[in-house]
């Protein structure tokens, strides 16, 4: 009888303790759920990311600390279909802060592999501007000749675009087609030295025509390591109601990407190349040396710029320090019309050594050699640069 009483009391104590523990656990779980709910995102997901860069450039005659450039990128995903991306470009130059919008566009996924976007966006004209221009991605501190703003070919524009990627058996293709304001033709009325040049910063359109263009990318192999791309853009860039209204401009580009880890050389080889060409229809421009304005001149208005780049990083080495190093070499060239007042012909070698502090922060040292045909001496530049993505 006594044993039975003791057992009953023990069982009651155990049951009481268990129920108390369960109650406590449930309270703790509810508390935890409240905390998680408070910090978990709703349907709107926002990310502030971007990159910053600064550096030093040394030439024979000057040494300059490059102004720090800071480019915050704002990404809003409001649903699985609707998305906004915007990048600001902030630079401190000549004692003043310059702010620009690199891109700001709204994308909507209409179908599985079919997205439409509108706004100011980086044009799919080759790969450099669209994919490689960010300082923490670019393997060298400088851009190839003719691939910066005002080079041969557009970088960004305002309009709309349809894009996507599709599997083709073991291969893959990508597409992007767009209609944008397009470039404007500088007829020399503002600056005679620039007559015949295309101005790609034509954000408020100078005529009713729209530039149509696009890029087709093809990744032939299953591993997607090789990509070939072909881009084109057609426009009529002349100011409306002028002699240049019917002048045409056709821009085209071809690009190549090949990135592969190779066991035999214990590292990753990264090859990039792009060729940009611009054909502007012939037009007569006023010769500024004739004060009457009656004399005109014309020229074959074709330009091109291209680069080929090779980088190697010993990613398969076991030593952490060794695998953080990377070497890169790039050859680039630009040629603008011979008989224009903005004729330019130059080639450039740039060789660099990088050290990756993290996957998105890099310290770069590079040496550039610019050569102009007919000039025996090269213009040499030593560059030091730090770029950080965040």
């Amino acid at each position, binding site marked *: 009888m006594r044993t039975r009483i003791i057992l009953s009391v023990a069982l009651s104590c155990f049951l009481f303790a268990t129920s108390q523990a369960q109650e406590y656990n449930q309270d703790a779980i509810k508390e935890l759920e409240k905390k998680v709910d408070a910090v978990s995102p709703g349907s709107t997901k926002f*990310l502030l990311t971007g990159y910053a860069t600064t550096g030093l450039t040394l030439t024979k005659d000057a040494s300059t600390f490059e102004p720090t450039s800071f480019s915050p990128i704002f990404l809003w995903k409001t649903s699985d279909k609707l*998305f906004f991306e915007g990048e600001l470009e902030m630079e401190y130059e000549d004692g003043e802060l310059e702010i620009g919008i690199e891109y700001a566009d709204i994308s909507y996924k209409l179908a599985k592999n079919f997205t439409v976007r509108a706004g100011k966006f980086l044009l799919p004209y080759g790969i450099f501007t669209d994919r490689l221009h960010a300082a923490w991605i670019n393997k060298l501190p400088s851009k190839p000749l003719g691939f910066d703003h005002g080079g041969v070919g557009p970088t960004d524009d305002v309009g709309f675009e349809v894009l996507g*990627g*599709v599997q083709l058996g073991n291969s893959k293709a990508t597409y992007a087609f767009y209609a944008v304001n397009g470039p404007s033709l500088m007829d020399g009325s503002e600056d005679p030295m620039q007559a015949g040049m295309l101005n790609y910063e034509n954000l408020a359109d100078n005529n009713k025509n729209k530039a149509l263009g696009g890029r087709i990318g093809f990744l032939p192999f*299953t591993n997607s390591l090789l990509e070939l791309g072909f881009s084109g853009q057609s426009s009529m860039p002349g100011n409306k109601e002028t002699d240049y209204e019917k002048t*045409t401009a*056709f821009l085209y580009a071809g690009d190549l990407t090949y990135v592969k880890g190779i066991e035999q050389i214990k590292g990753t080889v990264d090859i990039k190349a792009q060729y940009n060409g611009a054909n502007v229809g012939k037009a007569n421009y006023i010769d500024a040396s004739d004060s009457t304005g009656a004399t005109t001149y014309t020229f074959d208005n074709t330009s091109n710029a291209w680069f080929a780049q090779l980088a190697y990083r010993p990613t398969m080495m076991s030593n952490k320090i060794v695998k953080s190093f990377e070497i890169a070499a790039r050859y680039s060239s630009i040629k603008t019309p011979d008989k224009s007042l903005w004729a330019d012909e130059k080639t450039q070698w740039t060789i660099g050594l990088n050290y990756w502090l993290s996957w998105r922060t890099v310290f770069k040292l590079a040496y550039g050699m610019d050569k102009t045909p007919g000039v025996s001496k090269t213009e040499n530049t030593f560059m030091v640069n730090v770029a950080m993505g965040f």
Partner: protein
Amino acid sequence: MKKYKNYFATIAVIAVIIAAVSSCATTQKISEKTGNVLWQENCLRCHNSPPSTAFNNAQWETIGLHMQVRANLTETETQKIVEYLKTVE
């Protein structure tokens, strides 16, 4: 101008072909690719592949959509890569 028209006609034909073949079944070799494999193949074409710890799950979803637009990833590739980055340690 004629050659430009031809150029765009070519692009249009290619686009139509792409649209037509996009409905084709993906090969087994492609459909069996894991998020890990796709992450290594696609990110590295432009930049170093980010570690999964660089962002939280909600941020990976946003980045996934950003990269789908920027790098013309297919929806399947994007989903697999984002799921991989959300779950891997």
